[in-house]
């Protein structure tokens, strides 16, 4: 845990307020300025060889984020067409063996043999905070977005619960709760279906100079958080030194979560239980290569059109018919 704190301090991010980390930081830089002035993209490293599956992180997450959990209004408004189903976890808040709107982190287990040796590994699973997050890029309503620290979060005040973020997330991380949110004030029968929830990297704690609850609570120091470059270098080094494997550095075009495991991830992926709320560990290609290339054409198009239009005029072209 000390190591985690220290590396976080190195990020120059901790503000003066409250926490032990914050005070130490205040001593070093004199103020909480670093938070305001220099936002650094944060990443976490999870050393899976250390995780004992105790679930302290899951408990801590639930405690730290309970105030963000949905309190749905019942009965839910009737939705049309009838095939649109409500998603209700409000009576199953205790479920902690998968992702739900009330459980943003769970421990997946994988056991089997690799290289003739038996293994059993525990894998804390949550949103990976992608660098180019499909959930946020494709949200049509501006409810999901990525901030300057690389934290991807969903604004529960405007999310309509259409679940598009879940469909386009390669791991289908966000989970829906019906009966809450803005859609209730619009046309609840015809559009929307609640609000989507997932890990927000404890952004309120980070903004206050702290670290995520799950990182802090772990008795084994499984997670380390800090600036992405440093954490990635650390993850690569760890993988190299231990002959381990890395997941999350290139997945989905790059994420801010790096898992290092002594067992290859395709083996782990075979071994873990997958299904609703239980994401896979398969490799994921960058989904936006086409868009990233097209973006250049989008920027150039108006200028190219304008240049052609001016040339056309200069060459003495005549009238144009008046259509917008």
């Amino acid at each position, binding site marked *: 845990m000390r190591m985690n704190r220290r590396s976080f301090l190195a990020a120059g991010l901790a503000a003066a307020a409250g926490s032990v980390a914050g005070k130490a930081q205040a001593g070093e830089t004199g103020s909480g300025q670093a938070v305001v002035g220099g936002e650094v993209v944060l990443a976490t490293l999870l050393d899976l060889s250390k995780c004992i599956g105790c679930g302290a992180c899951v408990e801590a997450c639930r405690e730290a984020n309970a105030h963000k959990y949905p309190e749905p209004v019942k009965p839910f408004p009737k939705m049309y067409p009838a095939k649109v189903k409500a998603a209700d976890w409000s009576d199953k808040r205790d479920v902690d063996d998968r992702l739900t709107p009330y459980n943003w982190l769970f421990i997946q287990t994988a056991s089997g043999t690799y290289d003739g040796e038996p293994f059993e590994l525990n894998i804390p699973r949550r949103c990976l905070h992608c660098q180019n997050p499909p959930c946020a890029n494709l949200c049509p309503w501006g409810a999901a977005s990525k901030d300057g620290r690389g934290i991807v979060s969903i604004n529960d005040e405007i999310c309509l619960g259409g679940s598009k973020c879940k469909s*386009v997330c390669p791991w289908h991380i966000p989970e829906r709760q019906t009966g809450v949110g803005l859609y209730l004030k619009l046309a609840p029968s015809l559009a929307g279906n609640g609000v989507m929830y997932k890990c927000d990297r404890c952004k309120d704690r980070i903004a206050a100079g702290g670290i995520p609850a799950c990182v802090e609570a772990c008795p084994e120091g499984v997670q380390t958080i800090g600036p992405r470059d440093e954490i990635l270098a650390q993850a690569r080094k760890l993988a190299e030194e231990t002959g381990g494997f890395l997941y999350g550095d290139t997945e989905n075009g790059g994420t801010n979560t790096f898992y290092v495991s002594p067992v290859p991830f395709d083996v782990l992926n075979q071994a873990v239980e997958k299904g609703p709320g239980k994401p896979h560990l398969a490799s994921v290609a960058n989904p936006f290569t086409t868009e990233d290339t097209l973006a250049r054409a989008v920027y150039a198009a108006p200028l190219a059109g304008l240049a052609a239009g001016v040339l056309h005029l200069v060459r003495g072209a005549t009238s144009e018919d008046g259509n917008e």
Partner: protein
Amino acid sequence: MNNRALNLVFRLTVFALLFTGFAQMPIFARYYLADVPGFAWTADYHLNHVLHYGLAVVLLALLGWRLPLALRRRWSASAVLAALCWAGIAITGLVRVMKNQPDAFFSPTLVMWVDWTHLGFVMLLGLVILARVLAARRKAA
């Protein structure tokens, strides 16, 4: 290409942009369009996203092409309003493309407003065009 052909391309592009734009919302699957044989692609977010980008290239080039010509015309109040809508749609669209670049980030509040105004300008433009068409009809009658 003559003006008539350009106009046709323009109209088809706008229609396709409207369609792929609305396909960004989870409505085509909910309201059975995607169940119609041959229309499953309407619920494919990634495909419609790429199409929307490609069509935006065509639209932005055409708008750029028209700008110098349009500036030489006399402007009615409704034409000014329509032009403002086009500018608004183009600018908010460009900002959306920028924020989708891997190394970019915009504040969540800005992202929300850009998304909402993009949609808002489209609705407003629809109203303006409708009003202009109705006015032109009344004049002709």
